[in-house]
């Protein structure tokens, strides 16, 4: 018979941790200042669900735009042209540098310093598009623009590291078979880079979901905006924040399962 070593320190620590968790849950559950009935009342209220819907739409649309933009920026970043790669590097520098809340407030108030968007042919009087800013930049558009511009800056670096992870031999083999560089990127490099890119991209998606709460500063109509709006009328701030928190966590759980399945599919063959 073998008697395993007893880790007394570990056992004592485990007991302390469990007690701490029980104590915290108990104090929250029984605290008379938390009105759990209010949480239950608003958890499925139509306006909260609408806010949740907006949050999901803002997150998914921003993520989609950001991913496409990130691939473009990453490809530009590794371009042999010094000018193109510098523009991409500058983009990353700017949009990774501006705090998201500042970027969102700037975009939300774009109408203050830009009156209209005008696209014409330079040197002529021809005007193709001329629309007032206030019509184009709704809070929703400003939210999506801010999140996707900032998100793309981070994701471009992730995509770039994924592209660089694919060895020169793969590109040369594709080239020797007569593939153009765009086909090589699409059929050979990107599919392989995906495996490297996917896990950190999942984190970016969760980050994007959480960052979408910041659009409440420009009344983006998201979950947090709605929750705060309700709290402003019934003064149940904590309860409504708990409602929002529950939804954020639920979405993240659902997403994490999806991410797990996707990663398993692209796992190394």
């Amino acid at each position, binding site marked *: 018979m073998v008697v395993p070593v007893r880790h007394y320190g570990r056992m004592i620590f485990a007991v302390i941790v469990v007690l701490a968790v029980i104590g915290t849950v108990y104090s929250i559950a029984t605290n008379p200042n938390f009105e759990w009935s209010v949480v239950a009342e608003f958890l499925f209220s139509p306006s909260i669900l609408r806010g949740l819907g907006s949050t999901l739409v803002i997150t998914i649309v921003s993520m989609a735009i950001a991913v496409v933009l990130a691939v473009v920026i990453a490809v530009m970043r590794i371009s042999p042209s010094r000018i193109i790669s510098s523009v991409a590097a500058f983009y990353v520098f700017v949009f990774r540098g501006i705090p998201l809340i500042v970027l969102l407030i700037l975009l939300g108030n774009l109408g203050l310093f830009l009156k209209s968007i005008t696209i014409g042919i330079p040197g002529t009087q021809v005007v193709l598009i001329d629309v007032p800013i206030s019509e184009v930049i709704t809070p929703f558009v400003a939210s999506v623009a801010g999140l996707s511009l900032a998100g793309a800056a981070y994701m471009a670096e992730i995509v770039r590291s994924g592209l660089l992870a694919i060895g020169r*031999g*793969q590109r*040369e*083999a*594709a*080239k*020797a*078979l*007569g*593939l*153009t*560089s765009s*086909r090589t990127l699409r*059929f*050979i490099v990107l*599919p*392989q880079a995906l495996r490297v890119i996917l896990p950190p991209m999942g984190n970016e998606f969760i980050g994007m979901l959480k960052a979408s709460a910041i659009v409440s500063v420009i009344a983006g109509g998201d979950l947090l905006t709605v929750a705060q709006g309700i709290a402003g009328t019934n003064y149940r701030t904590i309860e409504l924040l708990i409602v929002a928190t529950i939804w954020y966590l639920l979405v993240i759980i659902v997403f994490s399962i999806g991410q797990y399945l996707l990663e398993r599919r692209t796992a*190394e*063959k």
Partner: protein
Amino acid sequence: MSDRIPNPANDEAPDAARPMVHIQHVDKWYGNNQVLHDIDLAVEEGETVCLVGPSGSGKSTLLRCVNHLEEIGAGSVWVDGELVGYRLRNGRLHELREAEACRKRVEVGMVFQHFNLFPHMTVLENVSFAPITVKNENKAEARAYATSLLGRVGLAGREGSYPSQLSGGQQQRVAIARALAMRPKVMLFDEPTSALDPELVGEVLAVMKDLALTGGVTMLVVTHEMGFAREVGDRVVFMDAGRIVEQGPPAQVLGDPQHERTKAFLSAVLR
């Protein structure tokens, strides 16, 4: 851009006797370092030419010039009577646009030292991918041809495997099938057995021997396998320091080398 114009007498090379691969006065520099010096080499259709020499002698670089994976500094490279990677206009060489260069590259197959199979594709996809994507071949026909090529390199039944499930020797044989699937006029082999475990070298050389002796494929092979060069090569070209030092039938170059550098190299390799 080349500052040396290819010999005008050979610009068109329309005669039937033209070599399959014709390398004329090729120079190449990396910065100020000249890695190829005035290389002249002709490979006839169906011929197997082995390039041997110490590492750094420029043999791999020369091979990579034949399908324009490397740019040349001066001179010209012709495959089946057509310039590789460049167009001759007003006596000057103009580099081809990418799409044109790619179209010409299809005529030259290449096998790499490290196989470079596509790990996210099955063996069958590796072999049939380029014919379908680049040459727009019918999918079913391309797959059927790929299957027959896999049979030819001794890998029948492994169509659904992924490269990581194969041994190095098997991977290299898939790589040979992949290059053959494009029905190239010339096959280039860049040290195809150097990355293999010793016991796997034989199976790859056997496939190459079969191609050379019964397939009638024009082959340019960079190799350290002197046995292969002796047995399969129609000609052996010895390179050193970016120059062709001597060439001739294997028995002559390997058995009775004329130059000191060849002798030194062979005595070091054969021991």
